[in-house]
Structures are given as C-alpha cells and as structure tokens.
C-alpha cells in the first residue's frame, strides 16, 4: 500500500511539466536578448576599466579574476572575466550587471542597478544603486574589449 500510494506524487506526468518548461525556455530566450542601453549613450571603456579594477568602486575583483596584472589579489568566487567580450553580447553583459538574479535567482553577484527588494541597506547606500546608469554603460563598453 505505501508503495502505490507514494508513486503518483513522485512520477509527475510530462504534460504537467510542459507549461513550466515553456516558461523556462521563454525566460531563457528573453535573457539571451539582454537589455538595451540605460543611457542611450555609448560607454567609455577606459572609465569602465577603472571601475572594474578599483576594488572599492566596482568590487568586481573581490569575486572575479581577469586580465589586471596590476591587481595582485583577485577573488576566485566567480568565472574569470578574461574573454567575456567574446562569450556575451552587449545586451547580455548589461543584463548580468543590472540584475543577474533575473538569470539565476541564487547568484551571489550583486545587482548593480537595482534598489528594490533589498533588506536592511545601510543608511549611506539606501535608495542608491551600486553603480550609476552611466557607470554601467562604461563597464559594459570595457567588458566588450575583453576578447581573449
């Protein structure tokens, strides 16, 4: 009795998964398109590099390594940024910076352009995004130059 009783709940008919799968796929497709420019202006790659390489500003190298020979201590919590400009398009890079949780809700990468849904933000940072729209565009422009 226990056997037959537990079987149906374990084996979910494929049909019941179909809508879930469709949703996931659609979400994935939207994610692949990325998001359009936040400013309508092209970013400045040199400024973007400075943001990424300055630990207190971009915080990127706390988690990522990358082609920054002058930065001795780079983290190992995330994939290397080397070559990321060949792996992802401009829109995809922007999406990952703006709010990576749209792709992976569990990610440890902070959303650099989001203020809602945060808990106990320190007074100095309340209502402020980690980077400004212009800074995000600068970082995106820089990441696109990382081609090997």
């Amino acid at each position: 009795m226990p056997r037959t009783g537990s079987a149906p709940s374990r084996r979910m008919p494929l049909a019941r998964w179909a809508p879930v799968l469709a949703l996931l796929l659609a979400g994935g497709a939207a994610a692949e398109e990325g998001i359009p420019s936040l400013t309508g202006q092209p970013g400045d790659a040199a400024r973007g590099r400075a943001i990424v390489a300055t630990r207190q500003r971009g915080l990127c190298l706390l988690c990522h390594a990358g082609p920054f020979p002058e930065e001795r201590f780079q983290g190992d919590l995330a994939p290397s940024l080397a070559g990321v400009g060949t792996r992802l398009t401009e829109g995809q890079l922007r999406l990952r910076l703006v709010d990576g949780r749209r792709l992976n809700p569990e990610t440890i990468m902070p959303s650099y352009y989001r203020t809602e849904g945060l808990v106990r933000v320190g007074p100095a940072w309340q209502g402020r995004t980690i980077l400004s729209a212009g800074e995000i565009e600068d970082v995106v422009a820089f990441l696109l130059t990382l081609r090997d």
Partner: protein
Amino acid sequence: MRRLLLALLLAGVVAEARESGFVLMSPETQAMQRDDTANPGMLWVEEGRALWDSAGCAGCHGDVAGMRGVAARYPAFDAASGGPIDLAGRIAQCQEARQGRTPFPRESEEALALSALVGLQSRGMPVAPPEDPRLAPALARGDALYRQRRGQLDLSCAQCHDANAGRHLGSSPIPEAHPTGYPLYRLEWQGMGSLQRRLRNCMAGVRSEPYAYGAAEYIEIELFLMRRAAGMPLETPAVRP
C-alpha cells in the same frame, strides 16, 4: 565500551569535516595563537584575572577555574528575559542584578577581558549547546537571519560561509564562520573584539546596517552558529588576521 569508542571516533570524523578559521591562517598567525606568550589576547586574559578579584566576581564564584565548561554552553536560556543570553550578557547581568552596579559596557576592554578569562577556562573543550527546547524559537530565528540576504550587495551569511567557504574574497580566504575563538585578537583591529564585532564587520561589508551591540539578533545568530559548531573545540582567546 567498543561501541562507545566507535561513537566517539565517528563524532571526531564528523567534527573534522568542519574547520575553524584557524586552519586558513598563515603559519605565523597560527603560531601566535598557539603560544600564550605571543598571543596578544592573553593580555586581556591577564586584565580579566585582576578584574575577577577587584570587580568582585571571586566573592561569589571563588577561583575562576570553576568556570570550566561554561563558555562552551552559551548562549543559554535566561529565565529573566525568557530568551537566550550570551556569556557577555550573563556577566553584565551578574554585575547589575547581584552586585547592584553598572555593568561594564559591551565591547569595553573590561567586558572583553572578563569574557576572555571565562572563555579561556573552556579552551580545548567541545562546544556543547544546551538541549533546551525553550531556545528553539530563537535558534530558528538565528538560522533564518543567517540565510537572509541583506544590504546593498544582497548577500546572506550562508552564501559566503556555506557555499563559498575556503574560496577567496579578494585576498581573504572565507572561513566557515565558526564562533569558537571569541573574544579574539584580530590583527586588522589591532585589538580584542567580540563575536558581535565580527558580525558587524560582515554586515557592514555587504553594506547592510548592523544591529546595535547586544541586539537580540546577534544572540540568535550566535545561538545558531554555536549549534552549527557543536563538538568543535573552543579556542578563546584566538588570533585572526
């Protein structure tokens, strides 16, 4: 007898799966913690010894050696508040309720000195959280606080200390966040600090607003961390980079 030995061995194996932040330190810093003549935390312990007599603890408790094992089972249930109390809170409660004096403020050199002295009496003993069902709600809140994403960087304790322990945040290896060494001497602080000071550092690190010293949230987190570290040896006063 054999079975008991086996159980003890197994417990040892399980405990070894968890690592104190000590393991991630440089050999020099490890040596500093191991050698009482080099461990700066022992200066606070010595101050604590003087206070034990001068502040009147000895009058009720006698020799401080009688405090053996105490630090291993805090936070404990406190009938007065109906919730958990940490060791520093208990010391302050003794001063206030039994001695009728203003307690040394949290994080004052005196409070750290007394906590370090009492903590040292349990050094090497396994963390032994009390099996008190009245602590269950606070323990559950501590668990939830540990998993709560917080701050502008939107990170939880668990995301760093469970999922990424042993990896590097910049140049810092991420420890498993065991509370076994507190109060401890941190080179970066150039001084002694409590577990609450450490938790405030981590909270500020994710750009979150820390709670005030003594807040219930810290004690709930400590309760959870001590449960998670059950069986690990106490290291007070530890040294950290």
